[in-house]
C-alpha cells in the first residue's frame, strides 16, 4: 500500500470539492465509504490512490419514500441496514434477498449502497499484480482468457476482458429499474441503472459511466416495480461467502396466465449486472409456460461466448432462469 492523504468530507459538495482539489492528471483521489473493497485493492497494490476522501460522515445514509410512491436510498446506507429495512422488505424483497446473498454478515455491516455499485471484479488476474490484466494495466493483455476462467463472463465480453461484476445487490437494482443519482464538478445528474456499468469493449479499465469526480448520492427505486412477486437465486461454490457463478433476479406480474410485467437480470455472467432484455421482450405479454421460459432463456444466452472453464455457465444460466420463472409462476398461481 502506498502512502496517501486522508481527508474527511462533511457533505456531498465538500466531498466532490475535496476530491477535485486533490486530483491531478494521472493521480486520482478516491471516495472512501465502507472500504470493504477499496482498502483491499490498495493493500494489494491494485488501487494506488494518493488521496482518500472519507464520505462516511456525510448525511447520505437515509431511506425514504418519494412522492410518486418510489423509494430513495442514500449512498451510505449500509448493506445490512438496507436488507433489513421494513420498506425494502415490504416493497422490494428482491433487493433485500439479493443483498443477503452477498458477502458475509461482517462485510455487509460495513459495505454501503454506493460502494457496492462501485466494487471491482474478482478476476484472479486482476487481483495479481504479477499477471497481465487489461483492466488493471491497460494494454498489458489478459491472462484470464487462457487461464483460470471458470468464474468469468459469458455475455458481453470483449477480446480484452472477460471479467464479471461481482455484486448481488446490483442484479436486483438492474432488475428493478433503479436510477442512480450522482453529483460532481458539473452538477447533479441521474443515470438509469442499466447505464451505470459498462461492457469491457476496448476500455476494460473503465468500469462505469460515472465521470471523474462524480459521487453517487442516492439510488431511487420506482413505484412501478414495487410489490411484485420476486425471487433471487444465487448458484455458487459454497453455501455462503462465495461470489455467484450465476445468479438470477426476477420480478414478475402474471394475470390469468399471461405475463404482464417481467423484470429479469443475471449476475456472474457479464462485466455488468446483466438485464435480460431479450428474454423480457419475448416474455412480456406471453403465456407463463415453461416452454416460453425455455425459449426466452435460450434467446438470452444465444450470444454467449464460452471459454475453456466457464462453458457450463451457459447451461446453468438457462436452467436457473427457467427454474426461477417457474417458481415465480407457481407463487403467483398460489396467490391468485
Amino acid at each position, binding site marked *: *500500500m502506498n502512502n496517501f492523504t486522508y481527508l474527511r468530507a462533511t457533505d456531498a459538495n465538500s466531498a466532490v470539492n475535496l476530491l477535485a482539489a486533490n486530483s491531478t492528471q494521472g493521480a486520482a483521489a478516491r471516495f472512501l465509504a465502507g472500504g470493504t473493497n477499496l482498502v483491499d485493492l490498495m493493500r494489494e497494490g491494485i488501487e494506488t490512490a494518493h488521496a482518500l476522501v472519507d464520505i462516511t460522515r456525510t448525511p447520505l445514509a437515509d431511506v425514504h419514500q418519494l412522492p410518486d410512491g418510489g423509494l430513495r436510498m442514500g449512498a451510505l446506507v449500509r448493506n445490512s441496514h438496507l436488507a433489513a429495512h421494513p420498506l425494502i422488505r415490504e416493497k422490494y424483497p428482491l433487493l433485500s434477498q439479493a443483498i443477503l446473498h452477498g458477502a458475509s454478515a461482517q462485510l455487509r455491516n460495513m459495505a454501503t449502497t454506493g460502494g457496492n455499485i462501485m466494487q471491482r471484479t474478482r478476476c484472479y488476474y486482476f487481483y495479481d499484480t504479477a499477471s497481465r490484466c487489461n483492466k488493471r494495466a491497460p494494454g498489458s493483455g489478459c491472462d484470464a482468457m487462457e487461464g483460470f476462467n471458470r468464474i468469468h463472463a459469458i455475455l458481453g465480453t470483449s477480446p480484452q476482458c472477460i471479467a464479471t461484476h461481482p455484486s448481488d445487490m446490483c442484479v436486483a437494482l438492474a432488475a428493478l429499474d433503479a436510477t442512480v443519482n450522482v453529483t460532481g464538478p458539473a452538477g447533479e445528474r441521474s443515470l438509469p441503472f442499466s447505464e451505470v456499468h459498462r461492457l469491457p469493449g476496448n476500455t476494460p479499465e473503465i468500469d462505469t459511466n460515472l465521470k471523474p469526480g462524480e459521487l453517487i448520492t442516492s439510488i431511487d427505486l420506482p413505484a412501478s416495480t414495487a410489490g411484485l412477486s420476486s425471487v433471487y437465486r444465487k448458484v455458487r461454490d459454497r453455501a455462503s461467502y462465495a461470489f455467484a457463478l450465476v445468479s438470477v433476479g426476477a420480478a414478475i406480474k402474471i394475470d390469468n396466465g399471461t405475463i404482464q410485467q417481467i423484470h429479469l437480470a443475471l449476475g456472474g455472467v457479464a462485466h455488468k449486472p446483466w438485464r435480460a432484455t431479450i428474454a423480457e421482450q419475448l416474455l412480456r405479454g406471453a403465456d407463463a409456460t415453461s416452454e416460453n421460459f425455455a425459449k426466452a432463456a435460450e434467446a438470452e444466452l444465444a450470444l454467449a461466448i464460452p471459454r475453456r472453464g466457464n462453458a457450463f455457465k451457459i447451461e446453468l444460466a438457462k436452467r436457473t432462469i427457467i427454474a426461477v420463472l417457474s417458481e415465480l409462476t407457481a407463487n403467483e398461481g398460489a396467490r391468485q
Partner: protein
Amino acid sequence: MNILRKVVETFAHVMPDRDRDELIQRHRFLGQPISRLDGRPKVTGAAHFSAEYPVEGLVHAAIVYSTISKGAIVAIDTSTAQQAPGVLSVITHLNAPQMKVPPPFSVGDSPSSGTTLVKILNTDRISWNGQPVAVVVADTPEQAEHAASLIHPVYAAEPGVNSFEESIPQAKQPKEIMGEAPEVKKGSADVILKDSIHRVDLTFTTPPYNHNAIELHAAIAIWDGNDKLTLYDTSQFTAGTAASIAGVFGLKTENVRVISPFVGGGFGGKGGLWPYTQLCVLASRITGRPVRLTPSRAGVFRIVGGRTPSQQRVAIAAEPSGKFSTFIHEGVTAQSTDNHFPEQFSFPPRHLYAMDSYRIAQKVTEVNRVANTFMRAPGESIGTFAVESAIDALAYELNLDPVELRMRNEPDRDPVSGNEFSSRYLREAYTMGADKFGWKNRPAAVGSQRDGDWLIGQGTATGTYPVYRVVTAARLRINADGTAHVQTSCQEMGMGTETVQTQHAAERLALPMEKVKFEYGDSTLPAASVAGGSSQTISVALAVHEAADNVIKELLSLAQKDSESALAGAKFDDIHAAKEGIFRRDHPHLGQTYVAILKHAGKDFVEAEHKTGAPLETMKYSMHSYAAQFCEVRVHRLSGEVRVSRWVGAFDCGRILNPKTAVSQFRGGIIMGIGMALTEETMFDDRTGRIMNPSLAEYHVPVQADVPHIDIVYTDIADPHTPLGAHGVGEIGITGVAAAIANAIHHATGKRITSLPITLDKLM
C-alpha cells in the same frame, strides 16, 4: 527395505510387550469430558500467539516473492526501497551472509525441520513461483510491506515444470516411502484382473490443497549477542526448529530457544521450517533489532507448502461373493524440485483388506512449485478417496451393500506384512455407525430419493490412519507442597494437549488436576518430537508414565529411609500412587503423602527426566485407527450444487482419553474433509506455476453453512499395545470423508465423480 530395518523388525517381533498399564482401566480423569484448560486464556486474549508477544524495540520485516517459477535473478534494484520511509535494511542474495541449508525433515535423535534444499536468499536461482528473493526491514509492518512492493527483480525466466499433469510421464519410483517399499506385490494382479468377471478399474485425481490455519505463520526473532537467539515461532516442532535454525546460522542448538506454546491451527503446515522463520532470524541478525515477520495470507500460500496433487488408479477384481481376488492401487504424486516427500497415498490398502493378490505402487514427479508437505492425514486422506470410491463402485457391480462388501473382506492379519493387528474393531465401528445413521433404511437403488429439486443419497467409506509413536522426553517433578510439574517441549495446536496431559499426570500421580502444571511449547524443555502423525498424545504420555515411575521409585526409597514409614519394606510393585501419595496395594490405608515424604526427607522436590525407547511395537504389530464414515448429501438436479445434510462418524481409535476434545478433533477432520471433497483447490496456473487464488475469499474452505450436524460415536476399546490404550485422533477424522461424499453423490445421482473437488459443474 534396508538391512538395518530388517534386523530391527526381527528383533521387534521377539521383544516382549510392555507391561500392561493399569491406568488403562482408570476413569477419575482419563476418559472424562474435561473442558480445555487453555480455553479461558484463549477466549480472553490472555494466551499469546507467536506474533503477539510484546517486545521492546520490535521492527518488522516483509518478503518479496518471485513471480517466475524457474530461472535466475539478473538484476535486483533495491535503491527505491532503501530510501522508502522507515526502512532499516533490504536484504537480497547479493548482500545476505551465507547460511547453511537445514537438512531434510527428520524426527528422532537428530531432529530437523527442513522443508526445501533451495538456498533461500543465498542464490540467484529461482525454483518456484513465490520463492523469497528479498526481505525488507522497517519500523512498521506497513512501511516494510510498502518498501517490499517497490522491488521488482529482473529475471531470466526458463521453462519450468509447472503442470503436474504434464509431468506424469516423467514419474519415477522413489527408493522408499517413509521407510516402506514404494511397491508391494503378490500374485499376478493384472492377469487376475483381466480374467475376472466382477471388477472395477477407475482413475482418480485429487488437486493440490493449501494450508489455511486461522493463525497466519509468524515469527519474532531476538538475538542476544551473536551466539544466542530467542525465537517465537508458530511451530508444531520446537525441537526441530531450534536444531535447524541453529544449523542454518552456525549456533549451538542449546543457544536457540524456540517458544511456541499456542499454535492457532497447525494441520501439518507448521511442522516444517518454512522460509519466513529463517528470514526473520536473518533480518534480526543484520539489523541488530528484534524483528517480527508475519507473511500475509497470500504470502503463506507462496512459501508454505500444501498437499500434493495425485493421480491414482484403483482396480479391483472380486469373486461373486465379494471376496477380493486382486487389488491394484497405483499412481503418482508431485514433489518440488528441491524436496523429497512422496506422499504415502498407497498405504491404506496395504492394511485394510484381505487380498489374495495385489500390486500397490507409487511414483513421484518433480515440479517447480513450493515444496509439498504434510497436511492432515497425508497419504491416507487422498488414498482413501480413491480406494473407498472404487470399493463403492465394486459394491454396485456386485449388487452388494457397500458395508457388507467391506465386511466380507475384513482381514485376520495385516494383508501385506502378515503382522497381527494390535487392536482392530472396524466391524464394531461399522455396526455402531450404521445403527446411528439408520443405514438399514437406505434404499439400495441409486437416484431413488428426492425432495423437490434435490436428489438425496447416502454414502459410506472406511477411514484409516496408522498409530505412530515417536521418541519423546519429559521431566516430572513432585514438589514439597504436593504439586507436580510436567515438562516437555511438545505443542498445543488447539487439540487439547495441555488438558489431556494434565488429566494423565493427575491420574498417574493420584493428584487433583489443579495440583498439576503441564509446561510445553519451549525447545529448552526435554525434547518432544513433532506434533504430527497423530503421535503426540501417546508419545508424551509414555514419557510421562516412565518419568513418573522413576520419581515414585525415588520417593519410595526416600520414604524407606524412615524406618517408621508405613511404606517400609515395600517394593515398587507393592505400592501405587493414591491419595496424593504412595500407598500399599494390599493395605490401601498404609502409605504416605508426597508432602509427608518430602517433608521428612527435607527435600524441596524430587524429579526425573526420561526419554522413551524406539517404537518397536509398531514393527511387531499392525497398528491403526479406523473410521466408518456415513453421510447423506443433497444434490440439486438442475444446478449440481451439493449440500452435505447429515454425518455420522464411527471411530475405532483405542481408548478415548477426553471425549470432549477428541470429538472436536473428529469433527474438525470431517469438516476439513468436506472442504477437500467439495470446495477446496489450489489453483496453480500451468503457464507460470503461480497460485491464482491465494486468499480465503477464493480458496474455498467450508463455511458454517456447508457443515451439517456431525454425530460421533466410537468403540472406546483400549489398544493393549499403546500407552494408555489410546491412539492419536487428529488425523483419522478426515480419512474416508471425500469417498463417503462421492459415494453418497453417486447414490443420489448415479454419477461417479472421480476428480476432486466435486464442484457443481461436474454434476450438471
